[in-house]
């Protein structure tokens, strides 16, 4: 593997002295700023418009999710994970449920697995749509936001019909699903797939070959695959740097190994590649959903899980490929009904570390673009 000491941009070299030897301008971007996606606070040291360095201040949305877990039973904690990455609540739930199932050594029945995959992939699309809208808005294109939200609405409608909630769904239970799918679920999903496929082309039409978009994103916020690995960056950000790493393929969970899909990767690791990778992931998600919805098996939706969940003493680490990257749950059980310790590996938090490497030497406007392209959710960063 990579030798961490040989990483060049990560060495915090002293930045150049400012132009005209003028004083550095220290700007406090956030926690209330339209483009920091919530309550991220970035302290920028500027030379005019050039970023000499930056520091992220986080914790404004800290709720102590991991500590709360220690005082809740395994079942009771399940809804809490939805509140971390609230735009991809289904993925969070999937990771947690699977981790506990692994600890209990049970497996969800196949029908539940298929429904889980469909919902998770729908959620991935919803998350990416939200990312695309806000990212484009940050760069100044205000229209894609409304297009993506229009289509995301359809996904949320399916969620609402399935489990009654739109955002914090609490869709899965430990051991499977609580609810059988509603009548017409398959039809809704198929309609949605047919509906959204041309819409993705519509987003791309507005942006992919737009000159200003190209100029704003190409070569901005570059990070090499080596650096990305060293920083622990995962998800589309890592894949855009040319590293073909997707947990759905590498450490298959749910029943992703049954589906045929590609891992889109980029080459340059810049903002434009990350955009392209995510746009390709839209289409891959559609592929997975189509395959899954065609082959949903009949059968039970809940495995045999005791009423009171008391996992055996032990610890488990389980990670899934959330829309933003590797979402891991490390659960330590002392044999009681409550977890002894839960540690979440949130993708946004780890990816945010790369912000400084990606922004140093760029302009203020690029910081905005890079924050957008990292696709962070502060609920997850701060937990």
């Amino acid at each position: 593997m990579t030798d961490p000491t040989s990483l060049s941009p990560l060495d915090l070299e002293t930045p150049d002295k400012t132009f005209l030897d003028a004083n550095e301008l220290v700007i406090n971007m956030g926690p209330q700023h339209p483009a920091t996606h919530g309550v991220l606070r970035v302290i920028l040291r500027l030379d005019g418009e050039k970023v000499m360095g930056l520091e992220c201040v986080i914790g404004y949305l800290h709720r102590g999710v991991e500590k709360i877990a220690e005082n809740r039973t395994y079942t009771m904690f399940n809804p809490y994970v939805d509140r971390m990455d609230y735009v991809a609540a289904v993925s969070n739930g999937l990771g947690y449920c699977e981790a506990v199932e692994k600890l209990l050594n049970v497996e969800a029945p196949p029908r539940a697995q298929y429904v889980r995959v469909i919902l998770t992939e729908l959620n991935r699309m919803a998350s990416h749509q939200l990312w695309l809208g806000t990212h484009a808005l940050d760069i100044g294109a205000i229209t894609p936001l409304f297009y993506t939200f229009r289509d995301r609405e359809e996904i949320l409608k399916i969620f609402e019909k399935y489990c009654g909630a739109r955002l914090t769904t609490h869709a899965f239970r430990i051991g499977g699903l609580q609810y059988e799918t509603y009548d017409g679920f398959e039809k809704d999903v198929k309609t949605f797939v047919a509906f959204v496929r041309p819409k993705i082309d519509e987003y791309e039409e507005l942006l992919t070959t737009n000159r200003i978009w190209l100029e704003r994103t190409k070569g901005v916020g570059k990070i090499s695959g080596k650096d990305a690995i060293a920083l622990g960056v995962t998800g589309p950000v890592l894949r855009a740097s040319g590293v073909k790493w997707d947990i759905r393929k590498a450490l298959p969970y749910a029943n992703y190994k049954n589906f045929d899909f590609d891992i889109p990767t980029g080459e340059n690791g810049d903002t434009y590649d990350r955009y392209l990778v995510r746009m390709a992931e839209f289409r891959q998600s559609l592929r997975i959903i189509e395959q899954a919805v065609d082959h949903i098996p009949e059968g039970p939706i809940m495995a045999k899980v005791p009423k009171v969940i008391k996992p055996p003493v032990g610890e488990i680490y389980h990670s899934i490929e959330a829309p933003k990257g590797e979402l891991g749950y490390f659960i330590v059980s002392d044999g009681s009904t409550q977890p002894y310790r839960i540690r979440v590996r949130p993708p946004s938090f780890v990816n945010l570390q790369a912000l400084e490497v990606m922004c140093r030497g760029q302009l203020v406007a690029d910081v905005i673009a890079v924050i957008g392209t990292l696709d962070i959710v502060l609920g997850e960063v701060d937990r």
Partner: protein
Amino acid sequence: MNPAGMIPAGTNPPVATPFFFYLLAAIMVIGGVMVITRKNAVHSAMALITTLLAQAALYLMLYAPFVAGVQIILYAGGIMVLFLFVIMLISIERAEKERQFNKQWPVGIVAAAALGGLFIAVYTTTTKGRALFPEGRMTYGETQNTQQIAALLFDRTAGQYMFAFEIASLLLLVAIIGAVVMAKKRI
């Protein structure tokens, strides 16, 4: 007011010239005083802009619309923006707290007073009972002012200032290069 007979047909008599003159003159003098007395350079610059705009209005009263236009576009719109830009670039908080006038200020005042005396002496001189500058006899409309200036600058036969104009453009080029060389640390 100018008697109507002095004005060629087709132009209109100017309205309330003395009133506007004294108004603009007052603005200019007050602005000038503000320029040299303000602590804050930005305030000085604002005062100077006011002065320059009032002067542009005076040019209009003098039937020199082209010069007025150049004054607005170059002075107020160009040079003063440059000034403001530089004032913002260099920190001024410290400069405000320091002593504003240098040690030789009495000398300066005396010299200026002497100069003022000279002006008064010259402007009140009369030779053979006539003032130095008798008033002009006729006022011309502004309809062709720009074209006439252009003729002086560029015309093949009447253009006396074509060479000077080229030299001026060269001067500007030199100034641009000089400013860049001095302001930029590494070229």
